[in-house]
């Protein structure tokens, strides 16, 4: 029989790489999960996914210029992400095209450009794989980056909180009364989103990066009502998913990135089923009178 200590604590006590993965996960949970709440509220969950692909060509360009440097790849990804987000936003505001459609257009363009760059350069190491970070290989540079992004995200969210909430609830209000505040909040939000995606792909890889942004935030809606409590719950769920995912990867020999995202997915499904607010259990089992 395995003791609770061996099950839960020993893996982190014995191995530095497990503690580093945990700290990286904590940083992501504090920054990305609360940001995800706004992403979901603004109905931009899929835009986040598109944006994570748009970062790829920038990271590829950074890699081609400077090799496997976390700073150059992050900078390249950041510039590409901001460019796609900015152009899509501009397109949505200046033409009749809706934002999701213009995002789809620009991200596919960026992705194709990225694949083209990588193939033409004949890179010596499989670039896509190099871009896929692993929670198990978080080095000092990646930790600093994730911690800095988490801090910046919390500060940014504190500064933009009111504007973002108002824009979610009544998009017209800031347009008529806010001066340029609505646009500023939107651009600031997209900037934070790109930063968090760049940070997350160092720990989870580009495909999984969106996982800790969206899943904890959607799960949190089944537990908390106000935006700030949803943010707290989302951060707690993201951290739990990181710990559970790492432990599953440790005890059951599973790849770490998918294990973390699948844990977040399991918590999401659990929340949908038995969460405190509007869950299936609440609506159909506990309050049968609602059926009538």
């Amino acid at each position, binding site marked *: 029989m395995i003791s609770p200590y061996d099950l839960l604590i020993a*893996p982190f006590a*014995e*191995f*530095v*790489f*497990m503690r*580093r*993965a945990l700290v990286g996960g904590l940083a992501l949970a504090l920054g990305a999960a609360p940001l995800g709440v706004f992403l979901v509220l603004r109905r931009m969950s899929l835009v986040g996914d598109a944006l994570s692909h748009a970062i790829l060509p920038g990271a590829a360009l950074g890699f081609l210029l400077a090799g*496997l440097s976390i700073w150059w790849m992050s900078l390249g990804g950041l510039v590409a992400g901001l460019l796609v987000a900015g152009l899509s936003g501009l397109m949505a505001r200046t033409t009749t095209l809706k934002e999701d459609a213009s995002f789809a257009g620009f991200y596919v363009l960026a992705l194709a450009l990225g694949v083209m760059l990588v*193939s033409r350069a*004949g890179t*010596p*190491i*499989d670039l896509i*794989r*190099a871009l*896929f970070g*692993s929670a*198990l*290989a*978080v*080095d000092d540079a990646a930790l600093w980056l994730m911690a800095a992004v988490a801090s910046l995200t919390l500060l940014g969210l504190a500064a933009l909180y009111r504007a973002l909430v108002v824009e979610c609830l009544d998009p017209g209000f800031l347009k008529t009364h806010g001066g340029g505040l609505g646009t500023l909040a939107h651009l600031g939000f997209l900037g934070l989103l790109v930063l968090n995606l760049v940070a997350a792909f160092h720990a989870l890889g580009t495909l999984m990066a969106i996982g800790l942004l969206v899943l904890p935030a959607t799960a949190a809606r089944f537990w908390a009502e106000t935006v700030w409590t949803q943010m707290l719950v989302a951060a707690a769920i993201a951290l739990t998913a990181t710990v559970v995912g*790492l432990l599953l*990867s*440790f*005890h*059951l*020999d*599973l*790849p*770490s*990135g*998918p*294990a973390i995202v699948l844990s977040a997915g399991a918590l999401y499904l659990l929340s949908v089923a038995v969460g405190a607010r509007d869950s299936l259990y609440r609506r159909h089992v506990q309050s049968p009178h609602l059926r009538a």
Partner: protein
Amino acid sequence: MSKARICALSLAALLLAAIPARAEIVAVASFSILADLTRVVGGEAVRVEVLVGPETDAHGFQPGPAEARKLAQARVVIVNGLGFDPWVERLVKASGAKPRVIVASAGIAPRQGGHHGADPHAWQDPALAARYVATIAEGLAALDPAGAAGHRARAEDYAKRLESLAAEYRAAIAAIPSERRRIVTSHDAFGYLGQAFGLRVLALKGLSSESEPSAQAMARLIRAVRAEGVRVVLVESPAETRLAERLARETGARLGPRLYADTLSRPDGPAPDFLAMLRHNLSVMVAAMNAVD
């Protein structure tokens, strides 16, 4: 000049132009190591093209139109088999050409790599590489009966050089105390080599360099490196090194010079051809096994 004469002359010119093209056999090999072996066996009569060139990882390679174009010209295609380069046969079908396909690993009983299935890296064992060469020689001989004797003779000659390299391996490893006969590598590419010479191979990732490791695999390896007193962790070129760096940091070991597992180096590198690659790997491994601090 009469029309008939013009016709006859141009026909003659066409025939003349066609002769050198027929004398040369275009062979396309799936990756750099097979290309080198085919070049050795084929000699002057065979022009060898390669799909996955030096310093490039063949696991998960993405072929493009340039590769399809090479295949369309090929009279013979050499693949490794054992699940290493399955995309080549799809590409051959797509290119519309009907070249002869030589599976270099034909007849070799594959090593089973845990729950990962058959291990494709058979060329790492010099004795099995000699069988690759013999298989390639037979394939070329069937295509080019006139040159058959030459292909077989070159293959036998090369097998002798492989045998003397295997003797070098045996002697070098015999000089190392048996408890130190182990190497730590990034992906599990040296299983056949380990089997042939009694080396224990500890690998961070599975048989494909593309697989993502689990925390358990990392932890197991860290414990093993500590318990065995391994001082040098070896990474294959061109694999990424972040995981291996973490492993080295956590155990106080260091990263050694790059091994070559699934690809040759560029001509100015340490492993420009297959024999040089085997020799380079041996010296890197021996230094790593002997390292005490």
